[in-house]
């Protein structure tokens, strides 16, 4: 929050940047602390955060499974809820991609929904995109001592073209050593329904990703997508791996301390 001195000598407070949060169904129901971390970081950066309580889901699970008829009402609900002009911040590459890349396909034959989508797309940001491109910040004042490796979630990387921003933010954390794993851009094998329709293929792909994390001798693997993290975490626990999964928001909310496990 900047204070400007007006002619009268009184400090003039500039209005804060506002952002509306779409926390995603996975984070809301399964990983609420990730949502809390995101709120903490955004507030620390002076953003006035709001949360529309009527939010549910972007509709991607049904869309990806081919159930577009069932996905549409859920997506419509999202569109109607987030009308307006505030930036919408999403801690998930795949949900942000659903709005920006896939809503136009889902609503191809629905001009009204298409129009709503157009206005929403331009102001929908994945979390790291928002920090770096809108707030122009790469150092959020976080500190964490440890070796961190970054997994490029597929939709974030290939639909939204975001790969530098998360790395810049990770490097901006005091005490962190960013180490690249081999095949950082390779899929983790989640793919939504794919992970349970073809579990043997999904876990074979996951095995490669986990080996790469081990190969980088990382303490933490960071990603911007809870789908990927849930998938990796699910097997990392059973394998007794040294590394721990963390959402980018959780890392950026760290304030000193480091690897304690």
């Amino acid at each position, binding site marked *: 929050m900047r204070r400007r001195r007006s002619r009268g000598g009184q400090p003039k407070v500039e209005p804060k940047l506002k952002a509306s949060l779409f926390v995603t169904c996975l984070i809301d129901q399964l990983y609420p602390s990730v949502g809390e971390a995101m709120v903490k970081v955004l507030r*620390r950066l*002076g953003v006035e955060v709001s949360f529309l309580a009527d939010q*549910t889901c972007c509709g991607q699970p049904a869309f*990806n499974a081919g159930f577009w008829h069932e996905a549409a009402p859920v997506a419509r609900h999202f569109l109607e809820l987030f009308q307006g002009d505030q930036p919408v911040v999403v801690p998930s590459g795949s949900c942000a991609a659903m709005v920006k890349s896939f809503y136009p396909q889902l609503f191809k034959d629905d001009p009204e929904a298409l129009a709503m989508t157009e206005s929403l797309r331009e102001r929908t940001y994945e979390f790291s995109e928002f920090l770096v491109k809108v707030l122009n910040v790469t150092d959020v004042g976080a500190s964490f001592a440890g070796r961190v490796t970054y997994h490029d979630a597929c939709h974030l990387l*290939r639909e939204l073209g975001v790969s530098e921003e998360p790395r810049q933010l990770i490097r901006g954390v005091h005490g962190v050593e960013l180490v690249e794993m081999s095949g950082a851009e390779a899929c983790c094998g989640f793919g939504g329904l794919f992970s349970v329709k073809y579990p043997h293929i999904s876990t074979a792909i996951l095995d490669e990703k986990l080996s790469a994390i081990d190969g980088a001798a990382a303490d933490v693997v960071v990603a911007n997508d809870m789908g990927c993290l849930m998938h990796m975490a699910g097997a990392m626990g*059973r394998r007794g791996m040294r590394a721990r999964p963390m959402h980018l928001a959780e890392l950026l909310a760290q304030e000193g301390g480091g690897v304690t496990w």
Partner: protein
Amino acid sequence: MTAKRSRFGEASAQAVADARLQRTLGHVMHHFNDARTTAIQEMTEETWEQLRERARAIKAHTLEHLDYYLELVDRAVRRNGGHVHFARDAQEANAIVLAIARRHEVKRVIKGKSMVSEEMGLNHVLEAAGIEAVETDLGEYIIQLAREKPFHIIAPAMHKTRHQVSELFQKWLKSAPTEDIRELCKTARETLREKFAAADMGITGANFVVAETGTVVLVTNEGNGRMTTAMPRVHVALAGMEKMVPALEDVAVFLRLLPRSATGQTITSYVTLVGGPRAPGEMDGPEEFHLVIVDNGRLEMLKDPEFREALYCIRCGACSNVCPVYQKVGGHAYGGVYSGPIGAVVTPMLDGLRQAGELPFASSLCGACRDVCPVKIDIPRMLLRLRERSVEGDSSTERSASRMDRLLFRRWSAVMRTRKALERYSRVARMLQRPWARKGTIRRLPLPWVSRWVRQRDLPAVAKRSFRERWEEELSRQESPGP
């Protein structure tokens, strides 16, 4: 929940469990991808992207005006003294080839690599008619001996170890046991030399067909394209209708993209341009030349704006090489002529969703294929569209999603439409999960789909307090500290 596996489910499970295959796949895929990366770095990223754009534009334009270019190629080939045939489907194409063979009393055929001939099942048709047909592409020759389908779009025998190849040669060619690759190649070369010399007819595919000049373009590394088209007295070239390009200079664009994308070569060892029979004064060439242009479902794809771009494919195989699914299951699991990401689109389109409707679901939709496709085909978009068609059905397919899936997603949709329903289900889930939730983790849960997850992975339990509850109770009231 039934544990019965589908055809692809079964085939892919076997592939994943096959340790030797996994080693081979890992090794070969790694090599292909490295070679491709190195070859592309011969030019700037900007130039590579410009080439891709240009190639895609050429394909788009040609397909947009395909009727015009088919007419052009017909005139050009006939002007060169050759013959052009149009085959509506595989059956018609086989009949055309057989008729040509019979007319020339053909007993022995040599073949260049042709995926469309695999669609036709041509080798079986020839053999049934008492005609010997021998593949001259080394990989195709190996799988012909093994009586297998191609394992990869450009490397049909990549799954075979040198040991397996040696055994095949020992069995069928009575060669001495050896695992020396040079020796194995020598054996193949000597055997095929005899076949080249004795053949009555050469049948090839076509990497590209130049409409303006009636030229068939073949890229090979063994030179078998040249031998197959020069030595026998009749040459038949089989080409899917999407292989047309307008002019010779268009071929140059594709030749800069195809070898680099396929094998990481700057150019293949041989690039063969042929068309028409031997002209007066020429020393080599067949007495007769036939171009058979095949539809076999391509026209339907052309007419469908959602799927037309699948016809841009130049058969490089790069999509397979980067696909995390293909890397684990290999080509045979796909069950069709075309495997990998493009195969997952094209096979349901050519064979129907009823037969191959599973393939579009066997993908994590990561998009790596689209990144490497030399003509920028948006494969993930088409996979999603095929999933939708599979669920909704269309004019030629009935809906194929299972009743349970349909019920589940209908329910999911009803719940996710309103916050009240979501919150209600959330409360119920928190209660019901208690017997299985330990310290926020679930290791066992006998529910549809979920049970498949927990076999190999833990699942997080539904949080005791959701984010929306935390927001309501505390977060909304907290002050922003400010910078």
